[in-house]
């Protein structure tokens, strides 16, 4: 592997890992928030048709 190849690999892999980590963390946070809303006494998620509660099932 040349220095050029190494530079491209490092840059692309690092950006891909960071981007995927952001997507994963956002999904996990939405799941946790959905769970919290469902456990809240009288929370909106208790009503049918709103799985994510206040957060809706919004765009991810």
């Amino acid at each position, binding site marked *: 592997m*040349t*220095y*050029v190849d*190494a*530079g*491209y690999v*490092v*840059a*692309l892999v*690092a*950006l891909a890992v*960071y*981007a995927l980590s*952001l*997507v994963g*963390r*956002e999904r996990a*946070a*939405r799941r*946790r*928030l959905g769970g*919290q*809303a469902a*456990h*809240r*006494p009288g929370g909106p998620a208790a009503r049918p048709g709103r799985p*994510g509660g*206040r*957060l*809706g*099932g*919004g*765009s*991810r």
Partner: protein
Amino acid sequence: MSSTTANAVAAPVPAAPGGAGRAGHQPRGAWRGRLVAATGGAALLGIAATVWLGLWVTPPDVYMGNLVRLLYIHPPIAWVMYLAFGLAMLSSLGYLWPRTRDLRFDRLAGAAAEVGVVFTGLTLVTGSLWGRPTWGTYWTWDPLLTTTALLFVLYLGYLALRRVPGEPEARARRAAIGAVVAFVDVPICYFSVYWWRSLHQLPSVTAGKSYIHGSMAWTMLLGFVSFTLAFVWLVVRRYRLAGLAQAEEADGLALALAERRAEGEADAVGRPPGPAPLVEHGVGLR
């Protein structure tokens, strides 16, 4: 952004960032979501095209040979680094200015700075990989390299500062001041190649002049556009995540308080008067 404070309960819980918070706002949220997805897709395609053009289509340079191929990604990544820290500074000023004070500016500054730190690390690594065969060393205390490394450390410190516990407003205020102070190094870093003519070459492309032409120039331009789009996408995703973390803090604390209240009411029925013990549920006492 993970510390929980009592004031978080009083603070208004933000609507789901980037999401469709209320039923009446569904089309707007969906439109915004599609725009972000399109930006991410365009960035991905652009970066793939830059890699293809940079590694297989463009010719080697007369002087640098194949090493010139690193210049299709190194300057664009460095440009994004400056852009990120500029956005963090402007957002911080937006927060510090009393008329525009809003925690959304604080979240935007944090998101831009974090992405900027990633790009600063990549600037240093790709630069070192270019420097080894060109200068014979991965690292030298050249003014540009040194000030870039200083930028990296300064903004790592800024990110650490953001995690120091405190009331949201106090946290945001000190972080904003930190971002403005850290930004002082950005112009020093950029102009260091002009002020102290040292080992690092001058920029290949400046406002009025370009030292590369033809397919090489177009490939570099594509790199600039693609990495800028990637930056926009990453900042939006990070900003959303920060909003969710803030909502999570507020939700977790509200839930814990509701549980304690319910336990207190239940205890009041069957217990003698006195302070109710805290029950270890591990839900709210984070």
